[in-house]
């Protein structure tokens, strides 16, 4: 029997800060957990007292990776509270912007944060020396998705053109056509991406759990829908608290969530598990090549599910642009909004999983109460249960291998723990 003590402070290649603590004695686990040392807090303090039209801009700053996701969720919450129904073109443009962010976030995670583990290097920088074409491809995809976001949202990060019920700026037909041509060209990069990740030896580990995501009748859901789980439950978005059941745990600033089981998972794998049939045929084909079949209980394959979603979003973006061009893209009118007291819940399935914003406005359209539940918090309990199940299976391996495996597990969840300050630390030479 081995005695093992692992304490990884601030897991690298995770967005933010998190610590892994494992302590086993004579084969018995004494301690095994992933600690969050910092989480987006004070959400309500940021938005309380602010007028309805500012909230999406404030909340888009919570995260530099999911800024479109937060802005869209925030807008849906506000629109429901104020009874605003955005026109179809607005919703199409939002979907397009959203797809851009999904691709942007997933390419970052799969290529820059996950792939180095499989190439046996510490980061994407040494990878650039040994597998230059892989890194160049990632940069091409990242540029495409960034430009897509900028074209619709008016800025690469933190969209400025998104407003309650409309876009304050719309792309021209020419810009849409040019972007569509680039998306069609990107199919080759998508094929290469699928081929690359299909060769990676995903760790063999399974633990049955519940997967939670949005679902819609007519499309693979990212914006709006109902909340569903692989255990057969379905809820209107407004009843999100019946799903999340948040609770405080002593060693983490993040609240844990559970539903039908002791924990649940959100994110790309949850979406693919719940909505596989609505993926674009090319994305379904990619899933086949990656060995991903619903219901998949291997959390490491969350990264494979992200690759599948990149393919889907490229294809669906091509389709949406077709639809916009056929309809004829029009400048949007700022809707007349009847400011009134009300409450609204918005939900989107952002890159890391299902996100909820809930606002209460007074009769002047000032936010008086707010709640936000982010995907990473919802995954925290499930990640810890996975870790506790994984450690006994790998305890006899060398310590470095165990450490790497646990770090890989954390990274597979793509946690975004402190979308946060990113200031420079500078030493003058």
């Amino acid at each position, binding site marked *: 029997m081995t005695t093992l003590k692992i304490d990884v402070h601030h897991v*690298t*290649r*995770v*967005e*933010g800060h998190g610590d892994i603590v494992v302590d086993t004695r004579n084969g018995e686990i004494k301690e095994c957990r992933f600690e969050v040392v910092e989480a*987006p*807090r*004070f959400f309500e*303090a*940021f938005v309380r007292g602010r007028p309805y039209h500012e909230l999406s801009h*404030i909340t888009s*700053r*919570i*995260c*530099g*990776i999911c*800024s479109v996701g937060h802005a869209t969720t925030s807008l849906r919450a506000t629109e429901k509270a104020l009874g605003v129904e955005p026109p179809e073109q607005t919703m199409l443009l939002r979907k397009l912007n959203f797809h851009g962010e999904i691709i*942007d976030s997933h390419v*970052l995670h799969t290529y*820059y*944060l996950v792939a*180095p583990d499989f190439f046996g290097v*510490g*980061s*994407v*920088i*040494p990878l*650039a*020396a040994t597998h*230059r074409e892989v*890194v*160049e491809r990632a*940069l091409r995809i*990242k*540029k495409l998705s*960034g*430009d897509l976001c*900028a*074209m619709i949202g*008016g*800025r*690469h*990060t*933190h969209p400025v*053109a998104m407003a309650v019920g409309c876009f304050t*700026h719309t*792309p021209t037909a020419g*810009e849409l056509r040019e972007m569509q041509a680039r998306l069609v060209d990107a199919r080759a990069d998508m094929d290469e991406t699928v081929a690359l990740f299909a060769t990676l030896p995903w760790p063999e580990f399974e633990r049955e759990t519940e997967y939670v995501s949005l679902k819609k009748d007519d499309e693979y859901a990212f914006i709006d829908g109902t909340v569903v789980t692989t255990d057969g439950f379905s809820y209107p978005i407004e009843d999100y608290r019946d799903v999340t059941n948040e609770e405080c745990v002593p060693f983490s600033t993040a609240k844990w969530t559970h539903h039908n089981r002791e924990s649940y998972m959100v994110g790309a794998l949850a979406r693919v598990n719940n909505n596989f049939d609505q993926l674009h045929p090319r994305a379904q084909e990619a899933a086949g090549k990656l060995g991903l079949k619903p219901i998949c209980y291997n959390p490491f394959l969350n990264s494979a599910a992200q690759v599948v979603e990149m393919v889907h979003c490229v294809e669906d973006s091509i389709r949406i642009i077709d639809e916009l061009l056929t309809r004829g893209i029009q400048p949007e009118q700022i809707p007349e909004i009847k400011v009134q007291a009300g409450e609204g819940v918005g939900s989107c399935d952002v890159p890391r999983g299902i996100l909820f914003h809930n606002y209460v406005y007074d009769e002047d359209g000032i936010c008086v109460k707010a709640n936000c539940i982010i995907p990473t918090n919802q995954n925290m309990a499930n990640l810890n249960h996975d870790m506790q199940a994984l450690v006994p299976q790998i305890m006899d391996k060398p310590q470095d291998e165990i450490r790497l495996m646990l770090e890989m597990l954390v990274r597979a969840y793509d946690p975004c723990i*402190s*979308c*946060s*300050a*990113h*200031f*420079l*630390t*500078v*030493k*003058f*030479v």
Partner: protein
Amino acid sequence: MSAWREANGESDSSSFATLILGMGNPLRGDDGVGCCMVEELMHLELPHGVHVLDGGAGGLGLLNLMEGWKRVVIVDAAEMGREPGEFVRFTPADVRLASAPDRFSLHHAGLSEVLALANALDRTLPEMVIFGVQPASVGWGEGLSPAVEAALPALIAAVLKEAT
């Protein structure tokens, strides 16, 4: 030419164009100093060929934002062990930005990773000047500390002088 610039009706494709890029998270106190500066600059008439952009917490997206410019002037909060509000002009060659290649977190040291990655791929980046501003606080909360707020006018003057 980025979509953003086209979207804003700016078709200056001159290779002499300079981008002033404010970085940071305005929800994290003085970390937002770059964004606050951009906000102020938006109200000013900028010299021809000078553009301004709030890069927010864009992380590795910086690489895309910097492409195509002749010069980029970056303004960001920087831990330099100085008095809060003090700002220092430097170039990438003058400093060591904390972050070893094996500690790759994309939010926290975007710039150092962008420089390392560009270097590894032999990519030429624009001429780059950085204004680091020593923060007093980068905890959750909006608004700059009095020391950093007080430094804004001098910072803006220095940045504009640099850009023209």
